[in-house]
């Protein structure tokens, strides 16, 4: 079973320690131990939601706010640029979700 790490008791996301495919079970370790099902394919180093997170609610990792949910996020869902936004950095909203590549610079 793939593993994910919950760093702080207050966290509502955990970090994947290996790639996981959609529908696969994930063993969460760290600040609490439990199993849940990944709803999406999620790559090593990326985050999955440990609880449902409503649009506008704070996403917490390391016990600190790392941004706000831009739409409702279900338990087990991949949490990244498509559903999480920084409170500071607005350019990152324009980046490609999969690769992080810039889409706002013109090459012409």
């Amino acid at each position: 079973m793939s593993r994910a790490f919950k760093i702080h008791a207050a966290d509502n996301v955990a970090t994947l320690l290996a790639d996981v495919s959609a529908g696969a079970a994930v063993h969460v370790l760290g600040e609490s131990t439990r199993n849940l099902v990944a709803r999406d394919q999620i790559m090593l180093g990326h985050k999955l939601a440990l609880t449902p997170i409503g649009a506008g609610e704070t996403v917490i990792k390391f016990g600190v706010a790392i941004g706000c949910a831009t739409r409702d996020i279900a338990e087990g869902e991949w949490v990244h640029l498509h559903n999480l936004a920084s409170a500071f950095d607005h350019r990152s909203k324009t980046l490609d979700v999969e690769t992080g590549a810039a889409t706002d610079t013109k090459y012409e």
Partner: protein
Amino acid sequence: MSNALIPSWTGFLRGDGRKGVRNLVLIIYTVECAKFVAHSIAAGEDDVHVIGFPGCYDNQYAVRMMLSLGRHPNVGAVLAVGLGCEYTRPDRIAETIASSDRPAEWFRIQDAGGTRSSIEQGKRIVLRMRDHIREATPRVPMRLADLTIGAECGGSDGTSGLAGNPVVGRVFDRVVDAGGTAIFEETVEMIGLKSIILARAAHDTARSQLEAAYEKAVRYCEDVRQFSVAPGNFAGGLSTIEEKSMGAFAKGGSQPLQGVIRVSQRPPSPGLWILDSVPDSHFMQFGYTNPNDTEGIMDLIAAGAQVVLFVTGRGSVIGSPIAPLVKVTGNSRTFERMSDDMDYDAGKVLSGDQTLDEAGDALLALITRVAAGQMSKPEALGHREYFVMYKHQDTPPLEVGCRA
């Protein structure tokens, strides 16, 4: 640690009393036009390194940085090479460095007669200086208390904040405990953590320095509409600057923050310090902050770090002149894929094979071997990347109006 376990090794004593872990000749070129000659002089010589500044118009920040690097404890002698037209003065660079009691010479390519004769002249000078410092530099015992260590991260991914940076944090704690100095920078990667950083201040002065540096970093990133996150960070699972910040800050360990130094300043006392490399406000908005990893590594070396740690989750193939770079990754996949370039796999913490403390001890042991002379991976590969740029920081206000 008991006394018997405190690492010690042999270093090089400089005339100014500082101790180095390498005994190098540094060539400093003062304009892009002199770069080819400078590198040709150094070619084929492991212990002759090169840095330089590309601009023809000089810049106080860049001059301060070249002087700090020339007086670095790992540097035994300096040759400054100019073309002859530029503002930056190789003669003044050599004289200033010579006043720190190490040999320093200079020449201009236009006086020496062109490419071939300049390279020949340069090689003669450099080889003579190298023979001299090999012979004349006193060898002295060194301990962690004599060490200034820097840490930078780049190519971060979701493992960096979980393993790579926390392991470096353990090393920082041990170096500071032993009476040494530890420096990390990237105030633009502290964004979102204001209260956490201020709570680490050793005293009120440090607290106000940290607050000012934090506010400047936020303002700067907003103004240039660029936060310190790159496509590879996002691809590696980091979604926001706040998330990346918390991972990056972990490399600072747990000791109190003594304050904030600026680029090319040395920490005034041992302990844990933050380096502010963000440009100050200026009518030309000189300089981008942290435009690449090499810039940050140069800042740490200019602050006197004799060894620099570089934490990279996704992998990187840079090195540095002057101070050896030790590469740490929290991603075991990256370690295996880039094993020629990576010095230390902190990913064993994530697989459960090692605790953070065990990994910290093992990394510290590697650092002391490198300090004792073992080449780090990038050093052995010949990586000597450097970056000295135009920037405006901490210079007096410009005079306006006509001079009498």
